[in-house]
């Protein structure tokens, strides 16, 4: 599907890749180092998603811990394939799955208990339950697709021009039609058309 070989960004991920390789080889010191390297970033990631919810910090830390346990388990089992996605994308995929499971579990609990959807967010029980799941299959498929999109945005696939990639990046950032129009210097209706066209092309390319 790709027309260019994947070229991971070495500056951002080479240290993590090296650590992961050592973890896979059974280096326990590397395991501790990787944990130290991942946990703060993962916690900030979940903090952003939780926004100003009550107990956001504890929840973010719990979710980060759940994601870390999954990443560690998947690395140990050899479930991560560096040929399909860079490690940072893989970690994001696992974190995303942990997040989605947390949301689903929370929704189930709220429906079961009749609780309202308030600002309590994700309960500790929910996040604890996450580590029992298995993210291997989901993560592999999801991260491959995300990696392909990252390659497109980096100009390494899909045949998009720099201007088209800039528009795709604006869409990725959640720009409205009006914001997209301003960025492209066109009318809002034209921006909407371009959005549809670009997404259709991207979907076609990703679908192979």
């Amino acid at each position, binding site marked *: 599907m790709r027309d260019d070989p994947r070229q991971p960004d070495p500056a*951002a991920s080479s240290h993590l890749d090296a650590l992961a390789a050592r973890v896979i080889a059974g280096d326990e010191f590397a395991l501790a180092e990787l944990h130290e*390297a991942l946990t*703060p*970033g993962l916690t900030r990631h979940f903090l952003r998603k*939780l926004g100003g919810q009550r107990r*956001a*910090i504890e929840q973010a830390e719990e979710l980060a811990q759940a994601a870390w346990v999954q990443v560690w388990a998947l690395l140990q089992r050899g479930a991560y394939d560096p040929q399909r996605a860079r490690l940072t994308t893989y970690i994001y995929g696992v974190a995303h799955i942990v997040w989605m499971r947390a949301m689903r579990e929370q929704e189930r609990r709220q429906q079961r208990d009749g609780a309202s959807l308030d600002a309590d967010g994700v309960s500790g029980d929910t996040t604890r339950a996450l580590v029992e799941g298995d993210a291997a299959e989901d993560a592999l498929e999801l991260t491959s697709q995300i990696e392909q999109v*990252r390659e497109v945005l980096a100009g390494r696939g899909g045949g998009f021009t720099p201007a088209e990639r800039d528009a795709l990046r604006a869409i*990725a950032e959640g720009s409205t039609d009006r914001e997209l129009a301003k960025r492209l210097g066109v009318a809002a209706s034209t921006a909407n058309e371009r959005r549809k066209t670009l997404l259709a092309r991207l979907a076609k390319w990703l679908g192979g």
Partner: protein
Amino acid sequence: MNERDAQRLLEMAHEAERLERDLSGAMGAADALPLLAGRGRGSMFGSSTRWGYWRAAIAACAAFVLVFGASWLQRSLPKGTVTTIASRGGHKAKPAADHATMLIALFAGDEQSNAAEPECWCLQRFAPVSGGDVASMAPEELIAASMERACVTSPRQVVVIGLSGPREHLPASDDEARSLAKCLLGDGASVGSGDVCLASSVDLRVQRWSNE
């Protein structure tokens, strides 16, 4: 695969890039000073109930007000006590283009409000007089700059969080600033691991001013 799936994957790719920056920002954590060293857990905002009250009390002032540091020199700081609650920094050789300094200021004015339950707060971009970052600023500069944009008429207490670092590691919205303030100042649950709240590439200074 349809257009909606493609849009969702685009958004996730964007999130993955942000996480990658977060992770790379955390790589230097070993040389970062412990955040809020010596402080108890959550002493600033007390319990999570208090935090809820604080949130409810928020009346965000004009977000992202550009404050020119020179103005503070022309105005004396109101009488009061300035205390540095936390300081972390010392990053050298910052490229000017992608670095910024921001302030998150929390104001308490009337008798019912205090630093734990402020009346209002501001997120400000800031240009330090020295041209440096928060770690190299004069002790009162943070407080004085915040006073320029005070959102209460007669502040009794102000807590200012000064941040300098790569723009991508600074809060990009009111929500992110609120979340960061909550993380840094505590909600009664956990402020133990300092580098959880901020990338290690961000310099930090937290100061409190009180006229009591």
